């Protein structure tokens, strides 16, 4: 691992994501993110790490358009996010898969319905995606848990259901916020292998974690946030 740097040369034309001198503050408070500049390339894999409270979650929220920066420029799939209307935000989000640390599965829907949700919101007929969802659920090892409600699932199964939901729309960019935070080390390794597999199939992956041991298992670019500043280790 080489020394970290605050990069601007990591910005390349054609990047999925570009942050240029992005700053963010909540209300009148201090800046949580300061002059963040980086890019994410197609088919790339990177870890996002840093101590608790350093701004990882805030950066993730900026990436999935849940927040707008107070300064700087964010470009997502070539679009300046500051000029997007709510419908355009929805369309861009369909190109991003998100896995939350707390899964965010809907407890009143079955696992199958949760995984199929991104296709359902597109207004597709259930018959048109049933085979695809079933195949993906078998792929993540939930083939026999399709009609089970999430409260019955184990932590690992919930995580895999959340990942399947993030993947069903074939996203170009997958964001995972502490996806191994709620599972044991063995399952964490399995999940990491799953993300690596996805990356090999062409999806860019950003995996936020504070688990150094997990990051050491796979040699990938690291984005480190400390005191609101981002350092990139290629």
């Amino acid at each position: 691992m080489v020394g970290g740097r605050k990069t601007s040369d990591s910005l390349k034309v054609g990047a999925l994501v570009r942050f240029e001198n992005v700053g963010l503050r909540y209300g009148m408070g201090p800046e949580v993110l300061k002059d963040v500049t980086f890019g994410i390339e197609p088919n790339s894999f990177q870890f996002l790490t840093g101590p608790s409270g350093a701004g990882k979650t805030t950066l993730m929220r900026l990436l999935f358009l849940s927040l707008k920066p107070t300064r700087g420029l964010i470009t997502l799939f070539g679009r300046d996010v500051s000029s997007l209307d709510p419908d355009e935000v929805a369309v861009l989000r369909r190109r991003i898969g998100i896995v939350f640390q707390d899964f965010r599965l809907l407890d009143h829907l079955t696992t199958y319905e949760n995984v199929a949700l991104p296709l359902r919101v597109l207004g597709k007929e259930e018959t048109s995606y049933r085979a695809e969802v079933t195949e993906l659920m078998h792929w993540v090892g939930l083939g026999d848990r399709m009609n089970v409600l999430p409260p019955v699932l184990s932590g690992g199964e919930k995580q895999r259901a959340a990942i399947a939901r993030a993947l069903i729309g074939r996203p170009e960019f997958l964001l995972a916020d502490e996806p191994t935070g709620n599972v044991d080390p063995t399952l964490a390794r399995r999940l990491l292998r799953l993300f690596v597999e996805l990356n090999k199939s062409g999806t860019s992956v950003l995996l936020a974690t504070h688990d150094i041991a997990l990051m050491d298992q796979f040699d990938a670019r690291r984005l480190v946030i400390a005191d609101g500043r981002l350092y990139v280790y290629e």
Partner: protein
Amino acid sequence: MNSLPTAEKEAKAPPAPPRKKASRKAQGSIVPRATVAGRALVAVVAIMTFLASLTLGTVLAVRATADMWRSDVAREVTIQIRAGDPAAVDAQVKAATDIAQGTPGIAEVHVLSQDETGRLLEPWLGTGLDFSDLPVPRIIVLRLDPSQTPDLARLRRTLTDRIPTASLDDHRSWSRRLGSMAEGVMATGIGLLVLVAIATVLSVVFATRAAVATNRTIVEVLHFVGARDGFIAAQFQRHFLKIGAQGGLLGGLSACAVFLAIASLPRLGFGGDPENPSILTWLYPGLLGFAGIAVLVLLVAGVTALTSRMTVYRTLRTIQ
């Protein structure tokens, strides 16, 4: 898609309930159906619809009854001959009868006998009185021909010119009072309907806000998986349309049941003489009233759905 190397099943996972083949039933509603807030709102909408339906039915019943009374009153006019010398009065009655019979538009002329007059006065004077000692005026009842409009002003002039003790009463003041009473009831009813409508809309607004707040996680997840605001609003709208329809039907049917129960009282032996009803047996809104209640139920369901849609849109603006 290749089999995932990480897909080994976890031994600790609780066993799944036995599943048959993946035959899929209808998908679950994205907004959970049975919530406490939902049931409370059904009750609120039902009560509001019940009150609105009662108001509407009562207003229509009052209007129909007032119209009926007015048309009854308008079908008759009376000539009154003041009391005096019996022979002269008889001659005046005869003259007034002739004038009335010669007037176009008068279908029937009937001179009330002393017995009939006595029966009219019974509520005030009691029975067994000798009316020959009392200065009781003579009454001539004229039934009007519904197919022709008589010139009552001319008849009045002719009568007063030829018989100074005669007066014609066409019950206009009574009819006017009935009319203004019916209009007053209508205005009050419309005011009540507006208040009930406002209360219903406000209840739905607060309930929708509460439902969106309760289901905020669902809204956020829908946002993150790429749902447009219109899709999310439609989910809530569908949910609230069902609530509105349930509550509306419950309230509307209850009001119909009340009206039908009141209407059936005389058949069950309550309500006294049908000609002289002592309780609310006149309170029957008729087919128009029941149709109005049906429209009201549809309106309540529609307004509930529309209000929730607008509220969801407004609330979504606060959630990114």
